[in-house]
């Protein structure tokens, strides 16, 4: 399993979804931090601990894609998994071109998300 500082960051403007993801990752044994918006993450989140960011695409203020660009621009090489209320092809294309590792359309299977996260974490641990 991953180390304690290998934290999953979740950014979603919907509180209920935030809470449910927090529980899911906790139940699966992943440390997790939740944020309501891109700004919250950038202000409060310790990005060095982040092993992976689960990002909602559509959010008030900067969108998930904006945040991904910002993180990249800030030199943070953190894998991004997108979750979205409505997925369409141009958006998916844009996300993967920007380096997203995965994209899930709501409502998604939690097990699949966990597996995606675990794939990312294990890959990062292998790299380290």
């Amino acid at each position, binding site marked *: 399993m991953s180390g304690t500082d290998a934290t999953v960051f979740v950014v979603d403007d*919907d509180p*209920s*979804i935030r*809470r*449910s*993801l927090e*529980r*899911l990752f*906790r*139940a*699966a044994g992943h440390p997790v931090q939740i944020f309501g918006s891109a700004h919250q993450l950038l202000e409060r989140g310790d990005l060095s601990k982040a092993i992976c960011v689960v990002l909602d695409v*559509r*959010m*008030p203020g900067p969108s998930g894609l904006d945040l991904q660009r910002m993180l990249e621009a800030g030199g943070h090489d953190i894998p991004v998994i997108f*979750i979205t*209320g*409505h997925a369409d092809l141009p958006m998916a294309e844009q996300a993967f071109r920007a380096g997203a590792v995965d994209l899930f*359309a*709501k*409502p*998604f*299977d*939690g*097990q699949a*998300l966990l597996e995606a996260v675990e794939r990312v974490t294990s890959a990062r641990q292998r790299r380290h």
Partner: protein
Amino acid sequence: MGIRRAEAAPALAVCVGYYVGANLGFILRFPPDTPSVMWPPNAILTATLLVTPPRRWWIYVLAAFPAHLVAELRIDWPPPLVLALFVTNCSEALMAAAFVRRFSDAPARFDTLYRVGVFVVGAVILAPFLSSFLDATAVSMLGGEPYWRVWRVRFFSNVLTELTLVPAIVIIVTAGAGWLLGASLRRRVEAALLTVALLAVGIVIFTSPHFDTIPGVPRSPLAILLPLLLWAAVRFGPGGLSLALLVTVLVAITAVTHGYAPLGELPLRDGIPALQTLFIIVAVPLMGLAALIEERRRAEEALAERLGFEELLSRLSAAFVHLPSHEMDEAFGVWLKRLGEYLRLGRIVLLRLDEDRERLSVSHCWTAPGPGTAPPSAEELVNGRNWRELLREPILVPDSSDTPAVADRGEAAPPARSELVIPLLAGGRVRGGLVFGAVAVGRPPLASVVPRLRLLAEVFAGALGRKETEDALRSSELMKSAILTSLPTGVAVLDRQGRIIAVNQSWTQTREDGSPRDTGVGSNYLDMWRRAASSGDPSAVEALDGIRAVLEGSRSALACDYSSGAPPGDRWFAMVVVPLNRPEGGAVVSHADVTERNRAEAEAQRNRQELAHFTRVSTMGELTASLAHELSQPLSGILTNAQAAQRFLAVASPDLVEVRNILSDIVEDDKRAGEVIQRLRDLLRKSEISRVPLDLNALLRDVVRLLSSDTVIRNVTCTLELHPEPIIVVGDRVQLQQVVLNLLLNAMDAMVECDEASRTSVVRTEKSELNAVHVTVEDAGSGLAKDAERRIFEPFYTTKASGMGMGLSIARSIVLAHNGLIWATNNPQRGATFHLALPLSGDGRV
């Protein structure tokens, strides 16, 4: 002053009469006495003067003069005596005529006791009495005869002559022709018998020398003649009597002059005066009696004539009083004929004024049978006169060809050919005129019957007035009835009790269509509603109460719709009941079949709702992405939470607090999803319009929340600047939501082309001063094209490639249905603003 042609013949007759009379007098003279037993010339002259006006007397006096000279100069009288005798003769005639003319109301008539009295006093007694003094003077002085003897002989002979001859002459001249023409055969035979009897009896008694020696025979022969004289007086009046007297006197005097002794043993010299006296004494009362009888007979005739006329008048009135106006025209004709014949007129013309009271025309005309009886034209009668001038008052028009009326009493008959125009006035208005014409000679003059004709005209005027009024009323009734008949609406008139007293045609037709109004004239309209009400129809109860209230006057009108027919609700009627404005009360009920109208309205309503639904559904299509997102959020939360719970529960000692929190979140998310679905369902539902008080601010918040996903997706900011207090309007929540949704979607669509930073839409609510709310939806888009501001709310007007152009059109119809207004303006800088004004609810509470 000359002699007219008409006076020459009478003058000649006087001249001849005087001469003949003088010679007759000489025959009846017993020389040496100068005066005769009878002296006709004076009486002839008196009679002539009585029938001529005094200013023409000189003609007849002059006419008598040559006759006098010729007659008397044959006798050996000295010329001065002859001249003096002419003077005395003339003086007697002038005195007699002047007296009678002065005191009598009709000098040439002897048909009343008064007239006979005046005649006896003036002409019979006074004139001979006075003139005999002159005569006696002349004769005694120039002839040397004893004065008083002359006076006595002359006086008695003149009294007798005046008494018997003057009435005879006057009556023959004035009425003789009429009697000869008009008397019946029986009268003629009677007159002949009387004459023969008089002559026979007279000759017998005056010429039989021993007549009075027969035992039992009265000594006076006149007593035997008295029954015959009475016969004459009673049956033939004063005229007949005077003729009978004349015949008797002539017989007696002739007998005496032939040597018979009418009074037995008296010598001639005493016998003649005795005979004269006897005649005078008998004749005067007989004249009075004849006059009395004549007077009485005339009064009776006048009374009978008057009664006859009054009967005619009352029959005329009765004929027209209850006559229906359409039968009057015929009756006018019938009665003109009856009146004309009764009054012995020449013609009667009924003139009528036309409706605009401009022209007179001949309505009816009756003309007496005979030549030249063509009915006159109105122009001929009016003769260029204005009708107002003609019909101002009764006008008597004598025919110009007649002799002018003579002012003096009794000399000349009024013109027989004349015309009387009497205006017909009824109700203070001139309706026409009656023209009475006496065109035939020998008919009674019109002037004598003017008052009667006016009475008759009044009846005609009344009838004419009533006819015109009734005709006008009938034509107005006909017009009203035509209007009522032409109405497609059934109309019935009710009396105070609700009985139907009149219906129009449509009412009957609707009834035949099978509507429940199986009620005709005479039946009670309320009964029908009572039956319907007793069968449990609540609207019938309401209608029944309403009609009763109108009939009782407690309600000014009733208007309601009701359905009837089979199946129920098949046909709809709009009923209006208004009170009848008359003292007896009642009401007017009208029924209009509004089935088609209602169907059309319902159809329109359904179409509108279907279109609205269609628009909502198509709006939903535009919202699909947003709604999918909206639903995916709670569903996602639920799934994730559930899977987390599964994991928590998989361990040996599950953290139940964690699981409880998870379940609580799942419940909330599920509710959230349910709300989204409910909102979706609301929009999709084909709902009927409801009108409830609602808070417009809350409604706007809901819509903006519904669109929140959309705003996120389209990267649009939607700002609410709402009035701090709730804004209550009455309306249909879903429809108003649709309007706002439409405006917001339009605003977002308008900003597609803008750069993302300025994609801002502002929704504001303000309370306006006019008890209304003003909602604005402002966008920062490209604004409206030039004519779009006006046309944007028209159906099928669209600027969008995919638009139907129905959204704003439907929004407008919804707003109008809410008594509101919707319009659009361009903003000063950029974009457009849509405005919505809705009336605020009165109570201001939700």
